[in-house]
């Protein structure tokens, strides 16, 4: 359903993505792992055009775009069918939890306030924040902020949900509550892409693992293939160093 081809992107003289191909089928839960600075997050952001590749193509069902000729309608169509959960949460600071989840439904999807509120309350309950509904972001913990971010992403009913290192800026005690919610989301059958450093978690929820190194996809396979019999020495080395911390 989603296919990226030959994505290339550079920030100044630093080549971040060096011809990445990635295809995702409906219902897939794909985890993208790899060392820092290899472009995992950037690749995810290319999908909804928060990062602007110099070249490459994307096709999302019938929506197609060549990044050399960016097309506003295609970008908007893709954004309307995806939702992103950010490493830094990026919950709207001027709105309560409820308003954060409702606002895109009212403003972008033009739903009535009643309908939006009903959907929002349902998703807020799903992430376990009903009691925090009317709190502002400055009154919430990191874990609660990220669960708000997830509720906001779910409420727009995306075809694909993009998790960008959702637990990387949480302290260890709060990681669990967020992972629990993500596991619940991914097991509901929604197509998900997850950039993460939580290896055990990636292994347990994904049906596919993509290993990126130096701006390219260096390995791609089932969790068993990647974790239990790593195909390349670089992947094995990376997994060893990650495990040594856990």
């Amino acid at each position, binding site marked *: 359903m989603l296919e990226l081809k030959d994505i290339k992107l550079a920030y100044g003289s630093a080549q971040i993505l060096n011809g990445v191909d990635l295809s995702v089928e409906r219902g897939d839960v794909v985890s993208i792992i790899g060392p820092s600075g290899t472009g995992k997050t950037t690749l995810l952001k290319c999908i909804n055009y928060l990062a602007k590749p110099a070249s490459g193509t994307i096709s999302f069902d019938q929506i197609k775009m060549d990044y050399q000729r960016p097309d506003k309608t295609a970008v908007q169509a893709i954004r309307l069918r995806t939702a992103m959960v950010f490493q830094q949460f990026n919950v709207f600071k001027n709105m309560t939890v409820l308003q954060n989840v409702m*606002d*895109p439904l009212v*403003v972008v999807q033009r739903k009535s306030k009643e309908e939006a509120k009903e959907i929002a309350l349902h998703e807020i309950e799903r992430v376990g924040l009903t009691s925090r509904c009317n709190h502002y972001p400055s009154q919430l913990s990191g874990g609660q902020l990220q669960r708000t971010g997830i509720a906001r992403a779910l409420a727009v009913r995306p075809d694909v949900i993009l998790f960008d290192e959702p637990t990387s800026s949480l302290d260890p005690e709060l990681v669990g509550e967020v992972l629990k919610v993500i596991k619940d989301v991914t097991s509901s059958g929604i197509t998900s892409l997850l950039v993460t450093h939580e290896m055990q978690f990636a292994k347990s929820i994904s049906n596919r693992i993509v290993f990126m190194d130096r701006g390219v996809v260096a390995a791609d396979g089932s969790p068993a293939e990647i974790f239990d019999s790593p195909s390349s020495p670089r992947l094995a080395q990376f997994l060893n160093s990650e495990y040594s911390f856990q």
Partner: protein
Amino acid sequence: MDVSAMIPELLSALPLTLAITFTAMVAGFCLALVASTLRIRRVPVISNLVDIYVSYARSVPVVLQLFVAFYGLPLLVALFGAADFFSPNVAAMVGLSLYHGGYLSEVMRPAYLAVDRGQHDAADSLGYTFRQKIFRIVGPQAIHIGLPGYGNSIIYLIHNVALVMYIGAADVMATAHLIMERDYNQYQFETYLVLAVIYSVLCLIAWLVIRFFELRSPMQAPEAKATTQIRHALISNA
């Protein structure tokens, strides 16, 4: 002449001071909005011209800006064949609007840029249009960040209105000097004291209005609430 007769005479010039202040506030705000937009969005040539304007408004002493407006604007309109309509009052309004607009744009621009990049990303990723993003998310947050700086710029504006007497506008400051000269400079201290009180009250009102909006902002609510709780706790302990 005693103080009780002087106060009403001073206050009779207050409407002009207020008119100049409000005109500069409103026109300056609009100018600052345009200037900030052009400086953030970098339109070739136009943005560079705006840079020069802002640099002029911020670096040239206000009293000099008033002289430039008073003597320069008639020459400018004469170029277009129009009659000189610049009375001291109009020149004061135009001059201070230009000053306030340039100064304020350097409050607005940093406030906009201080809004976390992630807020833009989140709104973009959800499909907000630029306008929706500005009005619903980035704008309200930038206002919250910029309000204290805005309050300062309003207070500076009120102070600088006192300079319009140099180009002959009859504001409270100029009236004070008229009164003093007429009375052979007998009551200088008393007159200046009354003037100081008038300016203090104007600035106090401006500060209270800004403070009201600061506290009303949803992003402020938790901290304000926290301080109230601490104050209550302290009082009950005492």
